Structures are given as structure tokens and as C-alpha cells.
């Protein structure tokens, strides 16, 4: 049995004729933060979205290889994709709260999965909003529209919403690119707190962010995972010349 929570082996992915991922293999350790970096179009978001099969919804997308989660291949046709996405949640670049109250945003998922007990839902709301470091800012206005929150608060609400269905992994696709530095700091601190209970995989364009918050970093280029290592090794002494050139800005 692997000590890794997720093992990606020989992953190839095509959008129609265009191959977006080439033989990618990497592992994600539990209770860690793994960052994926690389230039635009390198395949990092595609790789991230493969981990909870979000690419399934893209017409013409074809995948080969293996992604094991708890030693089961999630690419197998019999995988319950809804159950998978409950265990592997996702946060997107642009905060996307539902146009409903703060509280309802958090209870939406559990309700969908059959939780109706009001006391349990109230407890869950407080727990999840607390974990997403938003409670002190919204506790007295849980009935207010989520759309009234600032961008940073909306993003943390989205994280609370993801936590409400008790996931094990949180995938973050450039979660701070639309946020100011203060809101970005809060999300970065939050990611550090979350790894006590969850496993985080984050795609970021911001190399300083990757170096600040992640334990492992993968550098991707043209659909290939060029280098994957402990973050300190990648940013202090990368093994591959291409990685060195990218992170020192000598690329192209």
C-alpha cells in the first residue's frame, strides 16, 4: 500500500487531436501542499483538473494512464465521479459563490447529500466558516447575500463550501490571482492551516507563492512534468536546467 494519497502514473491527456499532457507521473503526500508551476498553457490546470475528473465535462477530452486515490484508479469507468468530487474539492481562480446567503452556500452541499438536521447544519456552518478563517467577519450576518462579500471573503467562503462536504483533498486553481495582497495573504495562511486536516494541490503563476506555502513543487512545460521535488530543492537548487531558467526568469 502506497504512503501517497494520490499517485499519478503515465498520464497522457488529449483535447481532440491536441495532446495536453505527456506521460506525467507524480505523487501527492497526505497533509501536504503541492504546488504546480509553469508558463501559461503548460498543462498545470489540466493536470489539476484530472485529479477530480473535471476534464470529463470537456468534449473531446481523452485520458490514458492512471491516477490512484487511496490505491484505487479514479480514471476507471466505474468510478463514482460525484463521490470523487466530494472527496476531492476544487477552488477556482475567480471566487464563485452561489447567489444565495452566506449560510446557504455552506449548507448547499450537505443538503444535497441528504443532511437536513438544522442543528447539525448550523454546527457545520460554524465549523467550516471557522476553518476557512472567515467566521469573525461574517458570524453576525450569515443570512446576508454571499455576493455582498469582498473578493477575498468570497474566496474563503468558497473554501468553506468545499470543506462542508468533508473532503480529503482540496484542489486550488490560481485561487489568489484575482485577489489583492492582503486577501492573498489570508488565503495563503489558510492553506497552511488546512494542511493539518486536508491535502492541498495548488496551481499558481506566482512562484513566490509556491515557494512560500508549498511542501512539494512540480514544474511543467509544454504538457510535461519537467521536475518534481521538495519545494526548497526546486527554488534553491533545481536539478533541471529548464526549471532553473524558468524560475530565474531566463526563459525563452
Amino acid at each position, binding site marked *: 500500500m502506497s504512503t501517497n494519497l494520490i499517485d499519478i502514473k503515465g498520464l497522457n491527456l488529449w483535447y481532440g487531436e491536441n495532446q495536453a499532457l505527456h506521460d506525467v507521473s507524480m505523487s501527492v503526500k497526505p497533509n501536504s501542499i503541492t504546488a504546480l508551476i509553469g508558463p501559461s498553457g503548460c498543462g498545470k490546470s489540466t493536470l489539476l483538473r484530472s485529479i477530480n475528473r473535471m476534464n470529463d465535462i470537456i468534449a473531446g477530452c481523452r485520458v490514458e494512464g492512471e491516477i490512484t486515490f487511496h490505491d484505487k484508479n479514479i480514471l476507471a469507468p466505474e468510478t463514482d465521479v460525484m463521490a470523487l468530487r466530494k472527496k476531492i474539492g476544487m477552488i477556482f481562480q475567480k471566487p464563485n459563490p452561489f447567489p444565495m446567503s452566506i449560510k446557504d452556500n455552506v449548507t448547499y452541499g450537505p443538503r444535497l447529500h441528504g443532511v437536513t438536521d438544522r442543528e447539525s447544519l448550523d454546527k457545520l456552518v460554524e465549523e467550516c466558516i471557522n476553518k476557512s478563517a472567515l467566521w469573525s467577519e461574517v458570524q453576525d450576518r450569515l443570512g446576508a447575500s454571499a455576493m455582498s462579500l469582498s473578493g477575498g471573503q468570497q474566496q474563503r467562503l468558497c473554501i468553506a463550501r468545499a470543506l462542508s462536504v468533508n473532503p480529503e483533498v482540496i484542489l486550488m486553481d490560481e485561487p489568489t490571482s484575482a485577489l489583492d495582497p492582503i486577501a492573498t495573504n489570508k488565503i495563503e495562511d489558510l492553506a497552511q492551516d488546512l494542511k493539518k486536516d486536508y491535502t492541498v494541490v495548488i496551481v499558481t503563476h506566482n512562484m513566490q507563492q509556491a515557494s512560500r506555502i508549498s511542501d512539494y513543487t512540480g514544474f511543467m512545460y509544454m504538457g510535461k512534468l519537467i521536475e518534481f521535488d521538495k519545494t526548497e530543492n526546486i527554488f*534553491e*537548487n533545481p536539478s533541471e536546467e529548464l526549471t*532553473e531558467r524558468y*524560475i*530565474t*526568469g*531566463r526563459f525563452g
Partner: protein
Amino acid sequence: MRNKFHADLDALTGDVIEMGNLVCNMLDRSVTAFANGDRVMADWVLEHKDEASRLDSLIEDEALRLLVLHQPMAGDMRRIATILKMITYIERIGRYAKNISNAAIDLMESGEHKPMPQISFMGAVAIEMVRDSLMAFETSNVKLVEDFESRDDELDRMRYDYLRTALAEMKACACNVDTYTSYLMVARYLERCGDNACKIAEKVHYMVTGKRIEIR
């Protein structure tokens, strides 16, 4: 913006090489001053000691500015980290050159100076180590410092040889005490210059390979 950063980093590297060359010349001339009793050489060293300090401050400020403004990574970060350590070692070598020149002047002024070819031999080994450590930095060629451990051992051995000679001379006549005390101090300074060259070599090795080594 990254091009500007790399141009600034290249310029900073050039400043370190300039400081290194200056200090190498100071050390070379201080050894000549002491070994041959050459007052002109000793004065030249003292005239240039402030320039080494000025470059030390200038390079430190510029290195910190690049760190703050550009948050360099990987090889760039290792280069700046190396520079920040290196300038301390180079500046110390400059201070030893100043001390050797002062010792030479004291002996010349007291009229007790004697030609000391042994110091030239030891000085040559130390100066070559300093030059090679700086060349390794300039060219990113760690092969130049691969034999530093044995060269440093050679310096230590020479110093102990001189210690024995000096003690014998001092025992032979108390009139030799002042001269040979200076002689021993200078041997000690040169041995310390070798140690500082080793420290530079360790940092250059880290800069080039990313691996830390210790030269014992």
C-alpha cells in the same frame, strides 16, 4: 524587468571581482613589503584599505537591494547569498594585508627589519589560494578550488615550521624577540588568509553546484 535584474547582478559580480583583485594586490604588496622591507609597497596597501571597505559596503547595499526588489531564486539567489558572505571574507583578507603592512613599517622604523624570504614562500601560497577562489567565482569553475584542503594543510605546515625557527632564534638571542614576534604574527595572518580563501571556495562551490561542502 528580469533582464534589468540580470544586468544588475552581472554588474554586482563585477564589483566583487574588482574588490577581490584590489585585496589580492594589497596582500601581494604587503607580503613584498614585509619580506623585502619595501616601504613604498606598505604605504600603497595602507592607502587602499579604505577602498576595500568602501566596496564592501557598496556591494552589500546593492546585494540587499536586489534581494528586496527581485526576490531571486535558484542560481541567482545562490549567487547573491555567496556574494554577501564572500565580501566579508575578502574584506578580512584586506585587513590582514593592512596588518602585515603595519608590521613591516614597524620593523623598518625600528631598524630591525631583516630580509625574510620564507614569508614570501608562504605569501605566494596564500595569495594563489585567494586568487584561485576569486577566479572560481568569476568563472564558476570549482575545479580551481578542488585541492584547497591540501594547500591549506601546506600553509599550516609552513607556519609550524616558521614557529620552530622563530622560537630557536628567540632562544638564541633576546634581541631577536621583536623581529620574530612580528614574523610569527605575519605567518599567522597568512595562514588566516588561506582559511578565508577556503571559506570563499566553500561558498563558490555552493553557488555553482547548490551543494554545501566544508574544507577542513
